[in-house]
């Protein structure tokens, strides 16, 4: 059966309001027809097609601009404001706290439909295609712009996005049939912006609606059934009166090189057709079938426009002279010409002018260029319609989310998670780490388990460090590089058994790292199992010089040595205990099941109460790590940061047989490369992150991380220097900063290993 998802029917005659004045309409009138019936022009001039192919009848309807008035039915009570003849329409003022909300009401409803066949176009070929599919027992949905269903985009899936007067349709068809027919050629001659020019179809529609056209003359093929005087010859120009209305048409007989001027009230142009194929050109790889005139690529182009003053693209006002200027500047290809001249980039997306531009290029080159690729949306949408049913990114909450809130945590979104930025006093949190004991919620870290007979081989190829010599119970820091040797992520490799490893990644990079790993396993055909445990395991970092005492109280008397790890109960909760340090103090990450996290957190907070325990947030953590010079991938690194640029070549073993990125690193190692991540110190408060780093008045880099160090009594920074020679001092925020080695704090790492 053929489905019709929207209510049909037409309103009886009534009145709409146009520019503040009442305008009567007859049953079945579009807004454009109603305005013409009132003796006026929908948009102040230009050829009317009344088929939705051009941008010559744009109006605001109830505050929504860029509505094709020929495609929207007139209903009693709607308020229409015609677009100005020159310039842009004044858009309604958007106010309120949420600019994503429509100023005209609540969000736009989305209706989804899954059908066997979506037929786009309700003309003869569309109806025939629909009948054929119905005969085969298929569920068919006909989408007809004339009926109010404007297809604005076709996407892979396939998915067809449809704008309707009341809601958005997201259609998921198994087959798509495009039967959109053909559009009439618009004239590209001087005077084509006058009021009173109609295509043949438009003339037929107005005549059928009972609208008098006055003294009408027709150039080209005259419309059947419409009283008019055919005028022979080539259309040269249209002449108008002081009101901007057509007064006469000038045609030429090229045989005798004579022009004829014919007075008229209305000019009807029957200049031929072009496939209405914008959706076909938009579909790309999406399979669809095209039937009827929309598939007729052999339709002849119109004569190339020649008069330099003639407007080719009426949406953007592009003239033939503009095309010539762009061409002379070297934009001698359709895609380039449209971008440089703005032809075909207006409201109608070339619906009216593409044939003219192609003809103009063909006259220059002798070759007819293929039409350009079209992009959604083919029709204008409001932001509310485009954003209908769009969801923002979902941010995860760790099992300790409510604990953080109860402790006064100020949470923010970071790396795909809600994370505590601080708990009211980041400096106190900092000192708890440096001098006492503190807890950090590191549940957000990426956590993978990999195993299998080929797992060591795989990890050796994946990472630039050695893996095979990591003993069970030991771990190693590792960079993750791409084929170009650029740093993608970093984390730890922890060996559990001969063929079993745990891997950690940054919070924001974990998902990408997992895809990367799975892709390479497939690519290499290795027998490796992968399990993502990021959201199944929580993790608490116990850090600070009193951390060992806290863990002893929690039952962990036997603790792993630095870079060691073990499985043990802590406060009765089974944990994978990892002895690492990102803060610069002795630290233990306790990875544990998410359903025991609150229990473990509360136990540790309780056991450490007399030790002055307090949690720390990201603000303190970023300062702590900065004092150690630890790099945060994505914050300190850029997309093309290599280990050498980050001064982390120590994490790369070029003597390994192979690893991802090795070839690129070997090649670039022979090339000069001045970009380096450096440490800086300065007196006083830390500058804003992102501040430019200046030398002799020139910008030579920028600050990636900054922190006013309580323990060091000065500001410490990481930042890029991208020019030789590396200076001893630079200027940041107008103050002198000293280029300094890192780590700034505990350079021998004694506290971290304690």
């Amino acid at each position, binding site marked *: 059966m053929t489905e019709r998802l929207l209510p049909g029917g037409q309103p009886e005659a009534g009145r709409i309001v146009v520019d503040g004045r009442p305008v009567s309409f007859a049953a079945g009138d579009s807004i454009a027809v109603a305005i013409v019936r009132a003796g006026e022009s929908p948009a102040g001039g230009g050829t009317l097609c009344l088929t939705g192919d051009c941008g010559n009848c744009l109006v605001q309807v109830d505050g929504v601009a860029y509505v094709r008035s020929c495609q929207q039915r007139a209903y009693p009570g709607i308020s229409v404001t015609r677009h100005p003849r020159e310039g842009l329409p004044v858009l309604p003022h958007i106010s309120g706290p949420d600019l994503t909300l429509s100023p005209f009401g609540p969000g736009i409803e989305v209706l989804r439909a899954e059908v066997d066949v979506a037929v786009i176009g309700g003309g003869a070929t569309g109806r025939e295609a629909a009948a054929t599919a119905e005969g085969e027992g298929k569920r068919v949905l006909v989408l007809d712009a004339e009926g109010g269903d404007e297809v604005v985009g076709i996407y892979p899936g396939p998915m067809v996005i449809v704008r309707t007067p009341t809601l958005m349709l997201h259609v998921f068809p198994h087959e798509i049939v495009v039967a959109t027919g053909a559009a009439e050629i618009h004239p590209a001659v001087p005077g084509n912006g006058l009021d009173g020019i109609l295509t043949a179809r438009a003339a037929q529609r107005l005549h059928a609606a009972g609208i008098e056209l006055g003294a009408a003359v027709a150039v080209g093929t005259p419309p059947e059934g419409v009283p008019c005087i055919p005028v022979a010859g080539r259309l040269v120009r249209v002449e108008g009166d002081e009101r901007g209305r057509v007064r006469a048409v000038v045609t030429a007989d090229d045989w005798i090189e004579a022009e004829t001027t014919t007075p008229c009230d209305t000019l009807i142009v029957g200049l031929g057709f072009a496939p209405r194929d914008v959706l076909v050109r938009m579909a790309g790889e999406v399979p669809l079938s095209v039937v009827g005139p929309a598939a007729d690529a052999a339709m002849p182009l119109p004569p190339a426009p020649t008069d330099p003053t003639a407007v080719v693209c009426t949406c953007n006002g592009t003239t033939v002279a503009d095309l010539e200027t762009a061409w002379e500047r070297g934009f001698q290809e359709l895609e380039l010409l449209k971008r440089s001249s703005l032809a075909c980039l207006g409201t109608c997306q070339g619906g009216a002018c593409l044939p003219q531009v192609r003809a103009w290029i063909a006259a220059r080159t002798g070759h007819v260029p293929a039409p350009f690729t079209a992009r959604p949306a083919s029709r204008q949408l409001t932001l509310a319609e485009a954003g209908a049913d769009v*969801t923002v990114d979902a941010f995860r*909450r760790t099992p300790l989310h409510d604990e953080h809130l109860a402790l006064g945590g100020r949470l923010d979104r970071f790396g795909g998670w809600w994370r505590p930025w601080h708990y009211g006093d980041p400096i106190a949190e900092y000192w708890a780490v440096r001098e006492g004991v503190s807890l950090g919620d590191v549940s957000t870290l990426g956590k993978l388990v990999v195993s299998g007979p080929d*797992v060591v081989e795989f990890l050796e190829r994946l990472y630039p460090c050695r893996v095979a010599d990591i003993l069970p119970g030991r771990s190693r820091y590792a960079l993750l590089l791409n084929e170009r040797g650029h740093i993608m992520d970093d984390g730890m490799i922890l060996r559990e058994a001969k063929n079993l490893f745990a891997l950690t990644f940054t919070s924001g990079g974990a998902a990408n790292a997992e895809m990367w790993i799975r892709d390479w396993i497939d690519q290499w055909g290795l*027998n490796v199992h992968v399990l993502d445990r990021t959201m199944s395991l929580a993790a608490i970092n116990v850090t600070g010089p009193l951390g060992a005492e806290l863990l002893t109280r929690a039952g962990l008397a036997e603790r792993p040595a630095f870079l060691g790890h073990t499985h043990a109960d802590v406060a009765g909760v089974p944990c994978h205990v990892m002895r690492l340090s990102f803060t610069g103090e002795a630290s233990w990450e306790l990875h544990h*099941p998410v359903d025991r996290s609150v229990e473990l957190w509360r136990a540790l907070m309780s056991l450490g109460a007399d030790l002055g325990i307090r949690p720390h947030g990201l603000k303190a953590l970023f300062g702590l790590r900065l004092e150690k010079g630890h790099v945060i991938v994505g914050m300190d690194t850029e997309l093309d940061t290599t280990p050498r640029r980050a001064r982390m070549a120590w994490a790369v073993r070029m003597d390994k047989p192979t690893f991802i990125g090795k070839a690129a690193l070997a090649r670039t190692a022979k090339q000069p490369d001045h970009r380096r991540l450096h440490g800086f110190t300065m007196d006083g408060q830390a500058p804003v992150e992102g501040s430019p780093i200046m030398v002799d008045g020139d910008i030579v880099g920028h600050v990636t991380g900054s922190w006013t160090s309580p323990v060091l009594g000065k500001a410490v920074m990481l930042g890029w220097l991208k020019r030789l020679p590396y200076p001893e001092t630079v200027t940041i925020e107008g103050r002198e900063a000293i280029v300094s080695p890192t780590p700034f704090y505990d350079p021998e790492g004694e506290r971290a290993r304690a």
Partner: protein
Amino acid sequence: MHALRAPGVRVVANPESIDGAVWHDAGPGREEFEPLVLRFARDEVFAIGATGVEIDDADAIVVAEVGYVALMFPADEFVDFVVPHIEWPAPRSRPAFAQGSIAGVPAKVYLDVTGAATVLVQGVYLDELIDRLPMPQ
């Protein structure tokens, strides 16, 4: 709708060995319970309610999984409150298992023969998903 944690056993192993896996439930003395075995991928499976597994793959990754929460919907509530937020075609057969986003949140859906639905979501996404589904409280 009601929500509860969905503990079970999660396994990544050779596909053939997963096909032949033997699942252990709560064991003698407990109420008889048949694990609900959901195949996430050819090489990955999650058995809700299972407490152990016998599997013929020495390198299989077998873990106790507690990260998932199950949202149980009667058929009519699922249609009214969840389906409008599913962008992908819902499976037509029953029982069925599908994976994708619901209101932009990664989720998995098990539909039993009656059409009742179990929406499986990682606990870290639970609040976000509930916020996005306009369900009666």
